[in-house]
């Protein structure tokens, strides 16, 4: 039975050896030699230092293409034209499935045809040497961003390859990203990743770890996201991780977003041991985008404004082409600059919003309910508690594709646009908190003169792409995606 305990040196080594056999490039991984490589990197490529010592929110985009040279010029563009502070390397979907063979095929196709036949950079296939070439040629810290449930080989290769930051975690890269993986298994896999990060850290090479806060990106209630961040943070800290960036995805209500980021920071510092340096990352709206670049810029603008008020340590930006598909590098850089302009115009302003404290208090209480439930489910062990809590539905994520989550919780916006919970399933929450949500949603239902139903949830899912925050019923059914109102009832 998996428990939240530190892997021993032996276990680490055993897994390490086994995992490196999964693909030929694994054999090039050599821990001692990798430490030496990291030590040779200049200060401005040391991810954790750059992030933790910044005096304003740093910006980071998402970006990954199959071939090395293309990835270099993509990142150079985002660094130069986009003025990104931190760079990403987004991994392709085959690698996420550990299908290195298919990734190899895609990579070779891409090399021949010049087409982007993979939706990211197959770092395992590029191997330690390829990764280092990337790190050497690009002049800023780079993080591995992926969505891989079993990221062990990816971590082994990319850490040795010079990357000093690694996104994901056993829950956040399981529940939103897979159908069948069990949590027991992903927790075990990520214990290795975190232990490996810890081993580097102990040798003076800090590997920053970043649990994926937005989860399904779709109306995730803040307390659910924060609880999962705390769990992943605790699991990582146990394995020796000392630089943790906890994430949160914008929901679009400014007060709620600011409150959530504050709650995340506060609870992160409270729940995680003192030795851990906790930073926060704010993801610009992760749900469906408007199918129009001008409107998408409005969504990005709200993200920038919110970031300027909440002041997270890092912001993951979106591009105006988010709706359509993987953005061009120009569009990606544009999203960075729009965000930068907004942050820099607003960040020096002393903006204090009414109601943030109350909302923050509510989010904190909700999060504590969930954390207490996890604690209770696991008899004090957070690994076991998480597994059991998901099993019972005490912990749940809306729109989770994974069999490991009930997916019974349904969110909807209240009359002010804050994300509340409409269908609780078995979520572990005090009754008086449920009552608050119920009352807020009742207000909305009354405003709209309709009952709370899945229809409301569906309308909220489409609202931002349709140009609004709240999915109000419309009489006008002509306009694209909000059609159906009159007929699907």
């Amino acid at each position, binding site marked *: 039975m998996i428990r939240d305990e530190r892997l021993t040196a032996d276990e680490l080594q055993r897994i390490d050896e086994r995992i490196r056999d999964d693909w030929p490039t694994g054999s090039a991984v050599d821990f001692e030699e990798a430490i030496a490589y990291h030590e040779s990197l200049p200060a401005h490529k040391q991810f954790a230092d750059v992030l933790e010592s910044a005096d304003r929110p740093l910006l980071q985009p998402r970006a990954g293409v199959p071939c090395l040279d293309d990835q270099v010029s993509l990142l150079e563009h985002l660094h130069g034209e986009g003025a990104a502070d931190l760079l990403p390397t987004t991994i392709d979907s085959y690698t996420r499935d550990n299908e290195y063979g298919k990734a190899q095929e895609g990579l070779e196709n891409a090399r021949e045809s010049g087409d982007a036949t993979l939706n990211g950079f197959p770092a395992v296939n590029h191997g330690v040497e390829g990764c280092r070439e990337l790190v050497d040629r690009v002049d800023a810290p780079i993080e591995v961003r992926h969505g891989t449930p079993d990221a062990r080989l990816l971590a082994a290769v990319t850490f040795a390859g010079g990357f000093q930051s690694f996104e994901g975690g056993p829950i956040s890269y399981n529940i939103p990203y897979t159908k069948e993986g069990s949590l027991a298994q992903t927790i075990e896999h990520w214990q290795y990743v975190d232990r490996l990060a810890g081993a580097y850290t102990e040798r003076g090479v800090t590997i920053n770890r970043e649990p994926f806060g937005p989860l399904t990106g779709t109306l995730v209630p803040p307390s659910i996201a924060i609880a999962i961040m705390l769990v992943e943070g605790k699991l990582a800290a146990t394995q020796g991780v000392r630089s943790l960036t906890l994430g949160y995805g914008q929901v679009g209500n400014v007060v709620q977003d600011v409150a959530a980021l504050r709650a995340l920071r506060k609870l992160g510092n409270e729940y995680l041991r003192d030795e851990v340096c906790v930073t926060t990352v704010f993801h610009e709206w992760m749900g469906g985008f408007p199918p129009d670049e001008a409107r998408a810029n409005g969504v990005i603008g709200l993200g920038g404004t919110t970031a300027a008020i909440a002041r997270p340590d890092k912001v993951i930006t979106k591009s105006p082409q988010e709706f359509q*598909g993987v953005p061009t590098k120009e569009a990606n850089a544009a999203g960075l600059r729009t965000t930068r302009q907004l942050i820099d115009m607003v960040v020096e302003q002393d903006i204090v919003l009414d109601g943030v404290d109350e909302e923050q208090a509510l989010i904190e209480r909700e999060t504590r309910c969930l954390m207490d439930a996890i604690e209770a489910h696991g008899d004090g062990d957070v690994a076991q508690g998480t597994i059991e809590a998901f099993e019972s539905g005490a912990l749940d994520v809306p729109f989770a594709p994974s069999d490991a989550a009930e997916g019974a919780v349904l969110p909807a916006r209240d009359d002010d646009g804050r994300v509340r919970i409409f269908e609780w399933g078995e979520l572990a929450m005090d009754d008086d908190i449920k009552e608050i949500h119920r009352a807020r949603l009742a207000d909305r239902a009354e405003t709209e003169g309709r009952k709370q139903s899945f229809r409301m949830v569906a309308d909220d899912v489409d609202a931002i792409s349709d140009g609004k925050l709240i999915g109000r019923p419309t009489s006008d059914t002509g306009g694209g995606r909000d059609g159906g109102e009159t007929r699907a009832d």
Partner: protein
Amino acid sequence: MQLGEYCMPTTVILGVIGSDAHVVGITILDQALSAAGFDVENLGVQTSQEEFAAAASEHDADAVLVSSLYGHAEQDCQGFHELLAREEVDVTTYIGGNLAVGQDDFEQTRTTFRKLGFDKVFDSETAPEEVIRSLERDLGISTREAETDRVQA
């Protein structure tokens, strides 16, 4: 709209192909199609070609709706229609979502997937209502057609 209004229940298979985990679109489609009276068999995300084919034949489906968002649809659908033919599954097939990697021209994408054998190809701006209307037309569900005409007249 009640189920009873159809002469016989129309069954559609719905799922996300390949290793794609984008579930929100099919969740919305499932809800809208069910509300409109279809029998929806939702296979969820990360569904293989074989699972689609098996479900279609098991439920004697009228249509198979394949969703793909993550940009690998073309690879994931290679040989799908050949498989359906081998399994003697004769259904209307739709594919929809974000079908190409990057900022592609949709007309080109449509051609690609029509060539792969799909009867219709939908982009990610597709509202559930359009899917319902299109299924009605393609599956010849006349009660609703008539009603639609009335409503729009």
